[in-house]
């Protein structure tokens, strides 16, 4: 009897909680809601150390927090969500830690590929930004399968930045742009001669269309957790007019209310940032 009462109370609490989230989302939606939000998911290891948890628990809880945050973003109507899942610099960590994180990511990608996952429920297209050749074959295959299975979805776009740094992204984009220019030059040489071919140069838009992050508009807000104030080689090119929001909360502790605070901060600065975007 007592167990039934407890589960009834929990169920009512959950429903009231959901109702409250929906109400707050409706109020927030009166103002401008970001189209694209990016997260630097900092603080997983610190969380693990603070609570004396088993190694790897911090990252596991961090991935749980990421999936929950993705759901909240979808419910708020934020179309593009990007997370800094694994930097090229993170390969400098201990091999066992890298392997643990990669196994966790592979598991998550496989979970998201399943028919009952939030990917299919919310109609989310998954995309991977980064030098995927640096990933081991099983992880890369899991990522490619997730991309293939969700390629036809278009309501929301979720990007994992994995084996990614912004400087690597820029060099890669420049390389692709140069190769494209090279082909155009050869074509022009054949048809119009050397003079016309030599006028071809690489422009900013040529570089931008080859960026890994060309699938999404520039982020409106970049949220970094655990109180850090740097971008750590993340979306440096794309964040000229982004609201850079830092919160002392560790990533595994992030919840709906932290997202609300970040969006409120964006709304406070929205008109100024919109004015700056128009100047570009």
């Amino acid at each position, binding site marked *: 009897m007592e167990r039934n009462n407890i589960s009834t109370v929990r169920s009512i609490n959950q429903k009231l909680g959901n109702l409250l989230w929906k109400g707050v989302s*409706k*109020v*927030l939606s*009166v*103002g401008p809601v970001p189209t694209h939000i990016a997260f630097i998911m900092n603080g997983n290891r610190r969380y693990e150390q603070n609570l004396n948890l088993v190694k790897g628990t911090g990252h596991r809880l961090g991935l749980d927090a990421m999936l929950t945050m993705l759901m909240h973003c979808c419910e708020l109507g934020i179309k593009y969500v990007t997370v800094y899942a694994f*930097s*090229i*610099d*993170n*390969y*400098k*960590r201990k091999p066992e830690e890298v392997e643990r994180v990669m196994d966790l990511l592979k598991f998550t990608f496989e979970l998201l590929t399943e028919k009952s996952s939030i990917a299919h429920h919310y109609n989310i297209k998954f995309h991977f930004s980064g030098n995927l050749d640096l990933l081991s074959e099983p992880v890369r295959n899991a990522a490619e399968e997730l991309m293939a299975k969700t390629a036809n979805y278009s309501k929301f776009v979720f990007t994992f930045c994995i084996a990614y*740094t*912004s*400087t*690597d992204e*820029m*060099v890669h984009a*420049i*390389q692709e*742009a*140069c*190769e494209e*220019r*090279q082909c155009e*030059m*050869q074509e022009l040489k054949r048809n119009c001669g050397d003079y016309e071919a030599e006028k071809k*140069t*690489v*422009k*900013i838009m040529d*570089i931008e269309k080859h960026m890994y992050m060309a699938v999404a508009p520039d982020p409106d807000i970049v949220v970094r957790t655990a109180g850090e*104030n*740097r*971008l*750590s*080689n993340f979306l*440096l*090119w794309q*964040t*000229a*007019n*982004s*609201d*850079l*929001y*830092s919160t002392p909360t560790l990533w595994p502790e992030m919840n709906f209310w932290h997202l609300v605070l970040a969006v*409120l901060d964006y*709304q*406070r*600065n929205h008109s*100024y*940032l919109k004015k*700056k975007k128009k*100047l*570009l």
Partner: protein
Amino acid sequence: MDFKKEMRILCSWIAHFGDLLLRLLWHLVHVIISLFYFTLGIANALESYLISWGVLKRYRSLHVNKLRYLAIVVESEEAYETSKIIALLQWLADIGVKHVCLYDMEGILKKSKDFILAKVDGAVLYGETHENNKLLDQTHMTLEFASFCDGKEAVAKAANVLFMKYVKSGATDQNQKGHIFTESQMTEALKTIGSGGPEPDLLLVYGPARCHLGFPAWRIRYTEIVHMGPLKSMKYGSLIKAIHKFTRVQQNYGK
């Protein structure tokens, strides 16, 4: 039929009322947040005065040597306040900061470069004393001036430098595809076109929002970015606090 029409009108009124209520709640939330930030602003102002007067002991010693290169991003509308910029630079010189990059999106500061260099005691233009990347043991404060064209446009120019080298090398064979450019080559190319300044350790943003406003992307990989508020309300104590906080930061660089 009349009943259905009345029901539709009633639903419409309820929807309008609901919409109005939501808007009122939204404005109320933002008023509360503004009040919070106003109170926080007063507390920060008080703290900065206490720091300036030397009351707060922990800010009395500043390990400014750790700050090798400082960048200041200023909102372009405020960049016209050259007297404020000069005062800020004088404060930095007094603190012992040796190398500063001044940035605003529209290049207003670049246009006032000569005036600023003339007014700030001991300031020289970056590049005139720069030799072999040595940023230490300088008696003068070096000033660099940058704008949006030193960001994406500079990267595009550097890309063309790399492109020309690529074309001249004749590397057109399919088998040579892969990573033909490296980050170090990109850094060298940026230096070639005159946009190869060092990476700032700390970037202070003077403006309404914490936003780097297009500061050259290649140079802010691991830069600490701190929002200082509008330039018109800049305070010496806040500057000391930001630099002090920076000197206590420990970075893992991904490790």
